[in-house]
């Protein structure tokens, strides 16, 4: 239990997937203009990241490893992610239309979010057990949500009061903000161990 909590906190603070590894930057930059879209996207990310990690772990450990074909795990993971997102969307469309309407465009967009693939790859790299994988996936997605929500709120504030030089508007200022927050998050360094 303590181990699970450690991994959860590490995934949010010390090894934040957006601020430490700079992963998932494309939606991070394009969808952090308003808090509402950022929130929708991050809920979708939490859902998909946890789901795909839960599917990928058995596929890797029960199928690829016994068959000694670990080398194709990149392709397998990508296919699994794309397929599962599509499947989930179809199921939602059929049985939970309001939920599907709420997720809207974000669900298909997630197939190209590198956070999802990265979490599955870290799971292999760090040799997590199944339970730890779930905790790590959830923690990473919550950490990503934290980062994008902070930046979205800052962006909304800057829309009101900011006077940003023309060339930095949009992605430029977001990278600067993310950089400063990443510097500050280095303060947590060495607090908890991710393994």
């Amino acid at each position, binding site marked *: 239990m303590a181990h699970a909590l450690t991994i959860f906190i590490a995934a949010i603070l010390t090894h934040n997937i957006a601020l430490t590894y700079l992963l998932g930057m494309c939606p991070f930059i394009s969808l952090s203009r308003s*808090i509402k879209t950022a929130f929708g996207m991050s809920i979708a990310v939490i859902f998909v990241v946890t789901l795909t990690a839960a599917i990928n772990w058995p596929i890797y450990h029960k199928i690829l490893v016994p068959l000694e074909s670990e080398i194709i795990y990149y392709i397998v993971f990508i296919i699994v992610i794309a397929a599962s997102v599509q499947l989930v969307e179809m199921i939602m469309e059929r049985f939970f239309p309001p939920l599907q309407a709420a997720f809207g465009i974000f669900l298909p967009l997630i197939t190209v979010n590198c956070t999802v693939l990265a979490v599955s790859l870290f799971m292999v790299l760090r040799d997590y057990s199944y339970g730890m994988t779930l905790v790590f996936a959830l923690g990473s997605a919550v950490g990503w949500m934290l980062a994008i929500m902070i930046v979205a709120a800052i962006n*909304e*504030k800057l829309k009101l009061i900011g006077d940003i030089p023309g060339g930095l508007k949009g992605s430029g*200022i977001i990278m*600067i903000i993310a950089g*400063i927050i990443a510097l500050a998050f*280095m303060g*947590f*360094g060495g607090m908890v161990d991710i393994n």
Partner: protein
Amino acid sequence: MKPIRLLIDKLYKIRALNKAKPMLDAMDAAMFGTDETTRGKPHIVDTIDTKRYMSCAIAALVPAALASVYFYGFRAIMIIAVSYAAGLFVEFMFAVIRKHKIHEGFLVTGLIFPLVLPPTTPLWIVAVGVMFGVFFGKEVFGGTGRNIFNPALVGRLFITIAFPAIMTTNWQDPLTDAITSATPLSVYNSEGIMAPYLDLLIGTQPGSMGETCRIAIILGGIFLMFTRVGNWRIPVCYIGSVFIAALAGNHFLPEKIAPPLFQVLTGGLLFGAMFMATDPVTSPFSKAGKYFFGISCGILTVLIRSFSANVEGVMFSIVIMNAFTPLIDYIVLKFKFRPVKI
């Protein structure tokens, strides 16, 4: 005063200096004051304007600055001078190119920044830090009153991460002027020895230039709160939550978490709580937000001090909470001022 007036009027007439008009305006304002009202954001209640705001903040910083000069001598004056010169350079460049006015805000940043540096910091690092802070912490967001992060802290953060060896191990003992590698906090972390409280209060223990003499800081802080330039909620919540978190932590994990009074009196806590966390631009504007801001800062500080690889956590915690500020305000507004349902 008359010859100076004449000189400034002459300078205004020189064609070549047209570009540097903000600089002349600033000189004019510094010498004679102006009859103009403030144009900068964000102060609307009261007749208080940015200028009085900043003058009060500077007046509150004077005791700490004097103490740093007393303890570290000419070196402290040099560092403050370099900080002002290098920072003003960036400020002037932006003012000239983007054609806005020079705000008084920099006068505070330029004084706070050197006061949180170790007295042995090489002067070029001082310049790099203050330039980074003013450029990326303030000017890219549009200048004074529009920044998200405290510019002095952004500069300090950058040089701490970029030059860790120089910034975290070169401290000067104020009594003997010897270079030591340990501050009271790191001594406690490694050997479990606590410095005497009286030494910490007076400032005879190594530390950053302006943060060692706690009496001067408390004086300045009380002045700030008395004039209502700094809101009392943030420092009280910040220091109080550090005290309570350390009290609880020290009870359960005495080898990791230092005792409460020691935590309050060491490191940059008092300075950060009084002068940096209270920055009205980078802290929440709602009362509930201010309480939350202060308490979170305190808990983060104790966590980073006790468990992370860094000895001091005040700087990190304030910048992290600066980043959270817009989100806190958004959530408070959303829940507190919900539209009435009829």
